[in-house]
């Protein structure tokens, strides 16, 4: 069993890296000071998209300070979402080796389990977004996000991390349990993964 898990894990990491690496790069760039001379690192493009600049100016805040605070909020949001995605996807991938698939035709019945795990995962993503963007007192920048922007962040985060979860799970699920994962058996190289 352990050997089979170890055989699958590299594929899991490949799947997770597809969207995990861009996420890590984004987090690093958000943690970097704004005055770094780089196109990507230390830039304020995320704040430009999601932050309510008019509101910031109306409140008499320094836009540079507000952008730095927003970047910090967005970085921590992504750290949390990334951790949750890794926990759920890695947990499923390892756990799928222990599913009681003991005869032909049984794997698809575990699709129900996968849906439950996926549902809980999506719920956790949305909940974390809400906590960080709405209820947390640690991040003052949360007041600089408008309602529509908040909805956009939640939707985009759910799609992005949901996709990361799905790709890593599709590649990292135990071979015998692939029928349980949506479209996992439609991959072109499915026989060799």
């Amino acid at each position, binding site marked *: *069993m352990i050997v*089979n898990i170890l055989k699958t894990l590299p594929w899991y990491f490949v799947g997770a890296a597809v969207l995990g690496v861009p996420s890590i790069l984004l987090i690093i760039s958000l943690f970097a000071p704004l005055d770094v001379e780089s196109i990507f690192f230390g830039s304020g493009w995320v704040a430009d998209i999601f932050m309510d600049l008019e509101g910031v100016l109306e409140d008499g805040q320094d836009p540079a300070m507000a952008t730095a605070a927003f970047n910090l909020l967005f970085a921590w949001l992504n750290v949390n979402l990334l951790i949750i995605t890794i926990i759920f996807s890695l947990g499923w991938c390892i756990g799928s080796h222990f599913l*009681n698939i003991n005869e*032909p*035709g049984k794997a698809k019945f575990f699709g129900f389990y996968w849906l439950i795990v996926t549902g809980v995962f999506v719920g956790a993503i949305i909940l974390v977004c809400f906590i960080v963007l709405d209820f947390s007192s640690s991040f003052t920048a949360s007041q600089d996000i408008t309602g529509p922007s908040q909805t956009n962040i939640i939707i985009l985060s759910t799609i992005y991390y949901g996709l990361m979860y799905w790709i890593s799970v599709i590649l990292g699920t135990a071979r015998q349990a692939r029928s349980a994962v949506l479209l996992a*058996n439609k991959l072109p190289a499915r026989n060799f993964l």
Partner: protein
Amino acid sequence: MKNFLIGIGGTGAKCIEHLVHSCSAGLGPDQLWVGMVDQDEANGNVNKTKILLSKYQNLRNSLRVEGGNDLSSVSNLFKTNITTNNDSVWLPLKGADPTLEEIIHYNALKPEVKGLLDCLYDPQERQMNLSEGFRGRPNIGAAAMLATAANENDSFWSQVHKAIDAAKGGEEVRIFIIGSIFGGTGASGFPNIARKIRAIQSEKGVTSNVHLGGALMLPYFDYDVPEEMDEGTIYAKPNQFLDQTKAALEYYSKLFEYNKIFDQVYITGWDPLTKLPKFEIGGNTQFNSPLFPETYAALGALKFFNKDNEISEEQQIFHIGKNESTDILWSDIPNVSSNLNSKDRIINLIRFAFSYNWMFGPALTGTLSKIKKYSNEHWFKRLILTHTYDDDLKSSNIGRENNQEIIKLVQEYSQDVLTWIADMNYSTVANSDQRMDLILTDFFSEYDPKNNSKKVSLKEKLSSDDKKQFKKLIYDNEELSLANIMSNISYIKTNRDQKGLGVFMDILFRSCGK
């Protein structure tokens, strides 16, 4: 190296059953010719072994076709190429209802020779119908065997002649004989056939390359004779087994002292004797269950044929028995060689048979449209679809008649393996305080000692609780669940030479091992 095995009498046939299953588990040599000797042509055990041999050969031939369904040469499943004559049983005495008087032409003998024969055989023995064997009378069997000519025209003896000719050509030949010491056919055939082989060797002037081994079964079972049995009827009497054995051992001790007939002899017996549930004088109703001591004879033969077995100049006599307690354990099963673990291979085969019979065999049986429901599963795509894909059909040919025939044959063979091990498990210790701690049988089979021809019946379907018990199927071994097997078949690498259904069969077999 050429290997020949001769099973004499009912015990010989039963030991061959164990040997065939051991060969399918990969414990046998690359090649083996098997023949049986029994005057009781209709004997239930002999027929059962005959059918088993034919099934094995069919299956092996179907699964080792280069370019077709091929397990490949590296696979241990059905490793040994077992060959037989068209009729694998040799009847020492031909013709309908032969008697000793007819064989020795009693009526044509001179009065003084007749007198000598009258001293050795009473009238009842001389006139006994021998079509059902020698009924526990080795004196009759010995005379009958010696009266037959071992010439090359006889298909059985022609194999021995060929073997010795091969030895003359420089090839190493190993011949192994299995028989009981206490019955009729075995007790009479064992020394006489061995001596005939040596005589042929001597006639042909072959002094080396021919090695002769044998397994002698000392008493290991008995039975209650029905009270209604007529005192005058001739049959193998269990109360005479020990006396017969004592006399026979004295004979062998003399034989071995002055004449090196055998290179290696394996001797085994059992104490307490296993009580057979039903007595049958012979014929097609004599269906004795497989018993554990017979495994020793089978493994002895495989050890003899093993390449690592170096045969010395001295005559070697091996004896084996189980541990001192009343429990029969896996550790009581000897290895065929230092790098061929009998226990592991047999366990592998049992698990394969179980998972095939109840899990994979049924899944692969039927038309393609029925089987296709598994086409989304990794194991099916990797091991079946990819390797049975037909370019003309543009789909898998798994549903085709020839493939379905193989799938059915493997299932039948799997049932034979499970029935064999379960029956041995039940019957060896029946009516005794012994315990067989090899496998857990209750959850997949039922035992009915009164049903002579089918003492063990396998369940048609298993419940989910039964399937969970698979983990505990083998005592004294690392637990392996059906889910583990499912996982293994998805990960174990296939071999390039494997083709068609051979890929799946070998991967499943390997998935059931360590």
